[in-house]
């Protein structure tokens, strides 16, 4: 990998701070109003309405064949439907003409200008006086009306009544089909409930909650980590009163990372923070998010943060402790095999091996993220904020 971007040797990453640098031949996308011809349509956009009309026609052909089952060949059904449902051919013809018009507009600037400026220029300007959102709503309503009209004409043909009467028959037919629809929905939910139940069951556990009065640990219980404790006490201000920092234009970190060899008191410090602040303490097991089924881990993360939000609202904050947080930051093979084992790829955002070098052993350095779950958005981002090494 080249070191292009930051001018330093070795592995390097694009300099995202200064933004991507476009290549020399880069052409910015033309604005619609600067175009001399109409923007070319994709093939699907060209044919989709014709395909819709063709589909409607085939439904009517199918119905005709059913009506004269056994005596009418397919060609006669095509012919009979074409004659009886002339409106479909008229609509298809109009759509075809429209597409030819678009095709010419995409190729001839003069033709495009004639239509957009001279013929429909005034109309277009009037239309653009309508608020964008209202214009979108009108267009959406018109599309629905078109769908209803087509549906009405098809139902009218099948039921054998006039389109006006068929409009009133539509709710009746929908109501008649309701038992079948409910039956389908019932089967659908029976299957879904099994998965929901299974995933709900599997997503339990791994997260323990200690309420403020349960946590007896205080800073006075922590010995031999005075410098860490001083830092933690500084950070307590961030966690307790982030507004005062932000008012001064400061950046409030969402959490604290405790990093060190096993047995150095990281969990104790985290408990002490919870005890000192009088907030609930949520302990997350290292393997809480590693699951046999894909998706269960995500569900657990979601349910954990839902729980944290509830606690934060009720108690004005919450301390969450991710034991061995390094396992959380990694994905795939890394998550399965341990924090630094297997096939670590070096790259931006990847975690770096600790200096101790004992990462893959059972005595994995305990990484502790103490995070205050804010009950309101902060400048530094959405809550909760987590610091990781």
């Amino acid at each position: 990998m080249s070191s292009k971007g930051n001018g330093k040797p070795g592995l390097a990453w694009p300099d995202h701070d200064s933004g991507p640098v476009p290549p020399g031949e880069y052409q910015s996308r033309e604005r619609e109003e600067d175009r001399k011809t109409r923007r070319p349509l994709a093939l699907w956009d060209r044919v989709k309405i014709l395909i819709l009309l063709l589909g409607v026609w085939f439904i009517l052909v199918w119905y005709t064949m059913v009506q004269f089952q056994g005596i009418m060949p397919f060609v006669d059904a095509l012919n009979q439907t074409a004659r009886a449902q002339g409106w479909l051919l008229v609509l298809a013809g109009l759509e075809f003409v429209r597409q030819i018009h678009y095709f010419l507009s995409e190729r001839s600037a003069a033709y495009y200008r004639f239509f957009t400026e001279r013929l429909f220029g005034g109309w277009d300007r009037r239309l653009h006086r309508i608020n964008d959102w209202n214009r979108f709503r009108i267009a959406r309503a018109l599309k629905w009306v078109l769908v209803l009209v087509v549906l009405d004409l098809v139902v009218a043909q099948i039921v054998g009544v006039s389109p006006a009467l068929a409009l009133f028959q539509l709710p009746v037919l929908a109501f008649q089909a309701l038992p079948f629809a409910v039956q389908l929905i019932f089967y659908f939910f029976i299957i879904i409930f099994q998965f929901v139940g299974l995933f709900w069951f599997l997503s339990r556990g791994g997260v323990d909650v200690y309420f403020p009065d349960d946590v007896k640990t205080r800073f006075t219980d922590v010995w031999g980590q005075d410098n860490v404790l001083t830092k933690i006490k500084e950070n307590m201000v961030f966690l307790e009163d982030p507004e005062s920092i932000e008012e001064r234009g400061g950046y409030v970190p969402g959490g604290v990372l405790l990093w060190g060899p096993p047995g150095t008191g990281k969990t104790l410090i985290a408990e002490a923070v919870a005890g000192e602040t009088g907030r609930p303490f949520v302990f997350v097991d290292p393997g809480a998010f590693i699951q046999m089924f894909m998706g269960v881990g995500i569900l657990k993360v979601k349910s954990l943060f839902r729980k944290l939000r509830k606690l934060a609202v009720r108690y004005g904050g919450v301390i969450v402790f991710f034991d061995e947080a390094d396992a959380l930051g990694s994905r795939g093979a890394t998550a399965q095999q341990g924090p630094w084992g297997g096939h670590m790829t070096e790259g931006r955002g990847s975690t770096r091996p600790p200096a101790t070098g004992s990462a893959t052993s059972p005595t994995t350095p305990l990484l502790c993220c103490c995070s205050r779950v804010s009950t309101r958005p902060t400048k530094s981002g959405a809550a909760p904020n987590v610091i990781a090494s």
Partner: protein
Amino acid sequence: MTNFWRMAAPALAVALLLSACSTSGFQYVSSAETNTVFKVPERWTLFSEDDVFRFRPPEISPQQEAANRASQWVMAFDGAAEPTLTHLFNADSTDPAGYAKVRILSEEERAAYSLSSLRNEEFEIDKLVRRQQVELLSEEEVSLDSGVNGVHLVFNVRQGAEFVTVNQTALKDPQTRVLYLFLVGCQADCYESNQGTIDEVVSSWTIKER
């Protein structure tokens, strides 16, 4: 989309449109209320129920006509270049003509209705056979899966010096409440020369299950 489909799609659409322009040469008749369908050649002329009732004999009163209209559905057809309802089973009919009729039987009719009644519904076959004015060419009982049953007859009716051949299918539902009648005929020579078409028309007469 591959190049193959780019070329095949328009060709397919054109082929579809062209196939819609060609027909098998038949026109189709259906009655949603009686659940019956049949087909006749495209060049034949169809007479609607109104046409048929407008052609009613003078002895039928308007009240009787109203009662008939309420209890039956009828559709006539004529293969002549100058079609008219007078061609029906007439000695002058040199082109096939006929009609399909579905009639609800009255309570009194139901009690006494039989296979013999079906035979004699339009022509008094049995009586005419005894008088040697009708010559039966074929006779077969018909029984459909739906329980509809009846009789299919082909016979010659003497009209003066001429013979008119008639193909008659008379059926009734299992409860003997509805009568289904289909007749096609013309001069014996005409019948012989158009037998293929007539057979196809007769076999297309379908009573759909409700």
